[in-house]
């Protein structure tokens, strides 16, 4: 968990000194891919803590999440439907879920049920 957070901080630092800026019309895509990526990172962290981490599952999940989220946003733009909201809601829910389980794993109290959201 410590290394993951340190890596994220390093990424923020690198991004702050990047010589280029992203075009403003990419904002929707960036926020959706950030949520998708964060979901994968937290999922991977949880799997690692629970000693069932699998590299292939992690990498494939990371890439498909990003691609699917981006594709959904793009198709939504084409159709005029804010389809990226579906990705935001789904990934947001899963981020909270994973975070809750990681917290319990770290504290040492196993979750009451796999889908428990509250503490």
């Amino acid at each position, binding site marked *: *968990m*410590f*290394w*993951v*957070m*340190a*890596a*994220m*901080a*390093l*990424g*923020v*630092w*690198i*991004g*702050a000194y*990047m010589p280029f*800026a*992203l075009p*403003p019309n990419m*904002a929707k895509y*960036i*926020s959706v*891919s*950030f949520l998708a*990526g*964060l979901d*994968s*990172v937290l999922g*991977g*962290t949880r*799997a*690692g*803590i629970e000693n069932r*981490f699998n*590299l292939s599952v*992690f*990498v494939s999940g*990371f890439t498909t999440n990003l691609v699917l989220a981006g594709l959904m946003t793009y198709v939504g733009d084409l159709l005029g439907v804010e389809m990226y909201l579906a990705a935001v809601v789904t990934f947001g829910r899963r981020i909270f879920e994973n975070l809750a389980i990681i917290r319990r*794993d*770290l*504290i*040492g*109290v196993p979750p009451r049920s796999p889908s428990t959201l509250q503490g």
Partner: protein
Amino acid sequence: MLGLIPERSTVDKSSPPQSWQVPVAMASILMGILVSLQFRNQTTANKSTNKQPELIAMIKNLEEERDRITQELQATRARLSEIEAKLAQEGTGYGELAKQMAEARMQAGLMAMKGPGVTVTLSDSKRRPGPDEDAYFFIIHDADLQTLTNELFAAGAEAVSINDQRIITRSSIRCVGPSVLVNTVQLASPFVVKAIGPSKEIEGGLRMPNGFFDSMAMLIRSGGEVKITTGEEIVTPAFTGSMSFRLAQPVPENTKTGAVSATHS
């Protein structure tokens, strides 16, 4: 709750990264870069919108100053003509000079003029363009006013003004956003173009086949208006802008022809 914690977790914060932590950390570096780039994007977007009121205030200040200076200039010019008139009356030999001066100012467009002529009123369409209509044909453009003034002068107009902005040798007509700048003054529809001159010739020139009136057919079809009135006494105001020469210098009479062929050959 804190008392219930049974033991420290298996992950020690200071231990070297475990095998699973390397790919996850790499992915999370990427996410960090993304979030920070996005953050920078948002802040720069906010900054540019925050500057707007400041710029608007600046423009307002400058416009007020411009109006004040324009008024001053008009007052000074009025006083100047008063003095000239006085000099001419006194008969001290300045009479001929004052007459020449008045003639020159008339030529330069620094005098309000009146006489018979034509008034052309151009208005934007009041209708909103439909889905398959081009918004371009719904409004008056700077090019339309340029064509019109060109046509007026070509047909013999002696003094032309657009919304009380006198057109002189150094006038400019250009487009700035939704309005038209004439002599650096912002004008908007409806445009009232007045021309002192031979009404019949001018109207004929405007209504010439493939002339100005025909070129406005799309506008008229889109709901815009082009109205030509003749036979009225018209007053065109004097030019109020600046007319100083900063770089241009007069060429002596005898070297005129030589200078033309020598430039930029």
